[in-house]
């Protein structure tokens, strides 16, 4: 087990190297630093000296290979440096944002998981009936609506008309739950269709397995078949799909956070995009990648919990 984890971590190194190479090519080689400086400097027509100063200040004046080495070291050692716009240390910004993001995202994450799996079980239980037919069709409809509509309509309906929750904003502590209601509802609806449909397919695939027939021949009820035999077997593909959501657990869903003005990592990233703050975006890309890789390793480990056939070698 430990050996497996160590090996997976070692495998991650070339991948992180590749990622930092891509970010370097993107952010250093494609955009000329001068262009960046020009757009950053507040003065209308910056003098060449001003540009030089800015470049020096942000370390964009050195030759490319020096910059590359510095970029690598920064990212691999997670020394993210300072924001291009505000000059604030990026780590400080992350520390500030991680709390709200974690609260809101983990609440919606677990709510989504529980609701979608239960709905998928219900639809699979009534497979072949009208419940299934219309349920699946409803899922396609929900899938076809853009998340922006869910955001706008959700805020209007649940916040403004029904007044279930504050329209936007965030307060730490117990109050946070109230502010998480709207993001939670929106996250739920926007992912519901795709998730339920996927889980249903996974479960129905399991329903056709031989062991289900054996269980029925033993006299196990349909409920027992679905909730014990099928659910535990379906856990593996469901886990895989859950990993994809892990980076966003901490990053927060970009749109949701910024729309509801929750001061999390998502909002920080959206602000960085609007301000053309390359340093912050770079750091977030790298952080997202690391989270994704950690998530993948955790998933593999959790496979051993649900599937005894999986051995981590």
């Amino acid at each position: 087990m430990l050996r497996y984890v160590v090996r997976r971590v070692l495998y991650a190194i070339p991948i992180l190297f590749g990622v930092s190479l891509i970010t370097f090519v993107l952010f250093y080689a494609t955009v000329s630093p001068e262009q960046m400086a020009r757009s950053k400097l507040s003065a209308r027509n910056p003098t060449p000296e001003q540009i030089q100063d800015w470049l020096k200040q942000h370390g964009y004046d050195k030759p490319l290979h020096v910059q590359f080495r510095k970029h690598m070291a920064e990212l691999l050692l997670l020394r993210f440096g300072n924001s291009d716009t505000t000059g604030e240390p990026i780590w400080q910004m992350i520390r500030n944002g991680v709390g709200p993001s974690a609260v809101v995202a983990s609440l919606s994450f677990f709510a989504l998981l529980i609701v979608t799996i239960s709905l998928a079980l219900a639809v699979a239980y009534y497979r072949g009936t009208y419940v299934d037919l219309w349920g699946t069709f409803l899922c396609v409809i929900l899938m076809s609506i853009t998340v922006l509509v869910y955001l706008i309509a959700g805020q209007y309906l649940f916040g403004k008309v029904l007044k279930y929750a504050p329209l936007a904003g965030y307060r730490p502590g117990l109050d946070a739950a109230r502010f998480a209601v709207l993001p939670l509802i929106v996250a739920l609806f926007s992912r519901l269709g795709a998730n339920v449909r996927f889980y249903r397919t996974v479960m129905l695939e399991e329903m056709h397995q031989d062991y289900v027939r054996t269980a029925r021949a033993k006299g196990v009820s349909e409920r027992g078949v679905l909730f014990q035999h099928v659910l535990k077997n379906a856990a593996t593909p469901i886990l895989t799909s859950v990993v994809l959501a892990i980076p966003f657990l901490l990053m927060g869903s970009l749109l949701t956070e910024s729309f509801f003005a929750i001061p999390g990592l998502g909002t920080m990233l959206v602000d960085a995009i609007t301000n053309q703050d390359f340093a912050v975006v770079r750091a977030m890309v790298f952080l997202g990648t690391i989270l994704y890789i950690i998530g993948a390793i955790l998933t593999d480990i959790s496979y051993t919990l649900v599937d005894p056939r999986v051995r981590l070698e």
Partner: protein
Amino acid sequence: MTEPLLRVEDLRTYFDTPAGTARAVDGVSFSIAPGETLALVGESGCGKSMTALSILQLVPEPAGYIAGGHVYFQGVDLLDYTWEEMRRVRGADIGMIFQEPMTSLNPVFTIGWQLMEAMAVHGKGRGPDTRRRAVELLTRVGLPEPERLLRQYPHELSGGMRQRVMIAMALANNPKLLIADEPTTALDVTVQKQILELIRELQQDFGMAVLLITHDLGIVAEVSDTVAVMYAGQIVEYATTRDLFRAPAHPYTRALFASRPSRDQRGRDLITIEGIVPQATAWPPACRFAPRCPERWPACENVAPVYQKLASPGEDQTGPAERGVRCHLYHPELARTRPEQPATLEVHP
């Protein structure tokens, strides 16, 4: 005559397929007395397994459905049962084992969990008694180290061991009838013999009836009392094992015997049955075996043969099993329309 344990009457199981309705089981009737072993024999695709699944109402829905007939178990028609009533019969009064021991056990639960579940769903709980019974069952089916086995997962076991677990599971509630659907097909030859031996032994110990489904006449000879030969969704011949082996009546049965590799045939070409089993969506209109039958004459392609009783050959008529066959050769009038004498088929019983 006493009421048999299981009496299947005119059972019909159909499937809706894109190509039309497939009549997988089309008017099958047979009965099994308590303690008797009936073998259902036929090529793959003839409806044997579907007959077995229909008895327990485990036909894959919604494509497949039981279109008609009766399944009397201890005098009560199981087809009148509700889903819940049927559930209580499955695994308790009727146990079933399947062909594929590799996939028939749930891979993510331990053997112990699955074995105890078989008892728990019939109201025996999961207490220490159940556990003791599980160990006892595993020992009974000849598995070593039952205590350790309870904690193991299916993938850690060989095919033969898994089939033994399946048998233990089917026997957990002392069923009166065991349905064994090709229980040895997927196993090695040596293991096959052991499993058959086990089933026969257990049958005597538990006093249960067995419905054995197989395509292997060798197995039939070894374990069964009576044989029903199935072809294209119908039973074409029904006889005691002894009678059948002595003198197979239906041309299909004879062809089955002829196509068996046997000792005296060594060195000669294996005889095969011409053609393949027709599609279940389009059975031949009259006799379903006619297109492949070496004995056919025009009547076979025009008139559907009916199932008729046949006098049992030989002097010792054992048991209540009657003899029957579905073929014009034995029809008093139609047989006379036959133009020439049969080109006799070599038979090696």
